[in-house]
């Protein structure tokens, strides 16, 4: 179908290179790309478009040490079903999720109100402490994750909550411009 007539391992159309290469998220808990530790300009995707002002709005690991990600829950569809009573009954209130070890370190107990901050905004919600997220050892250091379900806002019939995208960075994939909702940095403390 394509001019080669066969599948491509080597794809010139890709904007950051014909072969895939690891680059850190724009907000990295490691601070360095271990594949090229001496090149500070290739820590994150060197071909991703970054607008003026957005680079400065990225957080650093010193201030925001935890790797955060957003996700969806079975009971909700994006920001729509918070307007539906039956969905609101099954998942009524916003929460964030952390592992037991991080909870111990921060003195957070199951159900405590916590403030999750990125360099762009904050979310306050109940904290769900689970065994599902464990610290990982990355380059000799421990990295904790913070999980943030996205479904709440200030309109609808669920309890009101902060918009999760108060936290996320304004940068996208170098080809599709799909935003980087799935890897950024936050700090967390008891609210």
């Amino acid at each position: 179908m394509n001019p080669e007539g066969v599948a491509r391992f080597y794809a010139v159309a890709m904007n950051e290179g014909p072969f895939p290469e690891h680059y850190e998220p724009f907000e990295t808990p490691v601070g360095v790309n271990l594949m090229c530790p001496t090149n500070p300009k290739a820590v994150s995707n060197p071909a991703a478009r970054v607008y003026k002002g957005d680079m400065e709005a990225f957080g650093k690991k010193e201030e925001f040490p935890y790797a955060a990600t957003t996700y969806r829950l079975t009971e909700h569809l994006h920001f729509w079903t918070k307007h539906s009573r039956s969905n609101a009954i099954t998942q009524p209130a916003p929460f964030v999720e952390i592992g037991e070890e991080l909870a111990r370190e921060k003195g957070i107990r199951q159900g405590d109100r916590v403030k999750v901050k990125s360099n762009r905004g904050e979310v306050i919600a109940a904290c769900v402490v689970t065994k599902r997220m464990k610290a990982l050892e990355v380059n000799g250091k421990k990295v904790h994750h913070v999980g943030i379900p996205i479904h709440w806002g200030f309109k609808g019939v669920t309890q009101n909550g902060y918009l999760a995208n108060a936290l996320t960075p304004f940068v996208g994939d170098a080809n599709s411009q799909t935003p980087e909702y799935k890897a950024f940095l936050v700090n967390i403390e008891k609210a």
Partner: protein
Amino acid sequence: MTNSWTDIKNTDLVLIMGGNAAEAHPCGFKWVTEAQQHRKAKLIVVDPRFTRSAAVADYYAPIRVGTDIAFLAGVINYLLINNKIHLDYVKLNTDASFLVKDEFGFDNGFFTGYNEGSRSYNKASWGYQMGPDGFVKTDDTLQDPQCVFQLMKKHFSRYTPEMVSKITGTPKDQFLKVAEMLGETSAPNKVMTILYALGWTQHSVGSQNIRTMAMIQLLLGNMGRPGGGVNALRGHANVQGITDMCALPENLSGYMSAPTDTDDTREKYMAARTGKAIRPNQMAFTQNFPKWHTSLMKAYYGNAATKENDFAYDWLPKRDGAYDVLAMFELMHQGKMNGFLCQGFNPLAAVPNKKKLSAGLSKLKYMVVFDPLETETSEFWKNFGPLNDVDPAKIRTEVFRLPTSCFAEETGTFTNSSRVISWKEKAVDPPGQSKADSEIISRLFMKLRELYAKDGGKLPEPIAALTWNYSNPSAPAPDEVLREINGRALVNLLAPPDPKNPDARVQSRWRQAPSSRASRSCVTMAARPAATGSIAARSAPPAISRNGAIRATRPGWAYSRAGASHGQPTAGFSTTAQAPMPRASPGIRPESIWPGTAAGRVAQTCPTSAPMPRPNRMSGRSS
């Protein structure tokens, strides 16, 4: 999806990475459990969280967010050094043997040609070595250091299990276990599938996440096979429909890239997009780009799009830059965008960095929100305490809210992850004054057209000449729109004559009949094996069904087979002809319909196993 939901049941191994199908796609996930129960398929989940998908997996490995390429590149390295690849498949179906330009290289995080100022690559040093014949040079032994296979080996050799573990946080033994399980499907009788979702796309390296996996599936020989493939699970109901229906700024309908400022003539536009085969005997599907584009322009402008006016190419807008969602909000934030029609979209909630979005929306003169719900976006100007701490007195944006119908309140289609389009009927009337989005847009269009007719203006033609043939132009019926999307033939098209037997059509009596496109194609197609003698000796009567209808094939089938078979061996047709034929109904003499042996041969070569949608015109003559 490269495969379908139902095809997951044919797999030996499922990898879920960058998604959580059990929770986010519970209905589709049943095909995973089907494969687990009936084929003893294994399930691997790699995810930062031990999700409910992981809870029913045979193996789970944790991974740090945003490091999937390191993990998958490590798998590529593992497969290459342990010879866990399907070599015959790789040689036949990939560019592994193609030679790459000598000047191409990679060093310390950058490929050759990087421009730091523009954060982009000059790709001149990338690409294949071309021979004087216009074809890529290859080395079928895969030994040349510049062949893609060797370059790939070198590039990925840096992703050792130790390095993978150091970057991803996945313990080395767990990474190796996953690599080993994936590697087992390099056996020709084993196949694996991968299910991913937004956990792979929503990254600054999202496209490459998916590409790395596609490379693994190619090395394992798992693409294009039942139970294989790289399968994206779409999140919203009908989000596939949105992309298919070209609700993207960089595309025209049919995923054709829209013209940009530099494409100021139709020739330039076509030249940049029309493909040419770079290996012998290949066809380069995009060689047809001008045909697709011309068809689209005829659909847009009908008789107003002519060869003389370049099929109205000048009426198409030419993009002067990016208009993806981030670019749009950047423009707004810079104060370069004054108005915003926000249709079925809640960007204040759905786009990153709410603070920046809110500042951008505050700089608009007006915003029109089309939505069935009261969205956060439509009330971005209102203070909701700490949840939305803004000062309405300082926001000048005028906001209009147009209530629309929701999915259950309108007839139309859904397109799912498998690209299956389902028709759905309206369940209830929309409440109050809500209208379907299509009606709002149409009424807006009719008003614009009226204003152009009355007041004139610069370049009114694209609006004035646009095809708008709906029974109610202010509210097109969904079935009318679907029919329009489906396309139609402007003139009757005939299959080209067989170069080996140009008289084939003349031999047939069909030529004199007002035959359908299908039957003519069938003649052309069918005459080919007869001419080669492969089935010429057969004398069975034509296939006739109980109602006397001749069993021709479906038009699309006949047409595509006829088209695809040029220059191809004819064996496929012989095989088809040998399929059991239904017996003729008693009382109908084939000769009365099929005088002459040529026609007789024609009939039997039509694949009789294909279902007959409706009697064609020939059956009318026979009954």
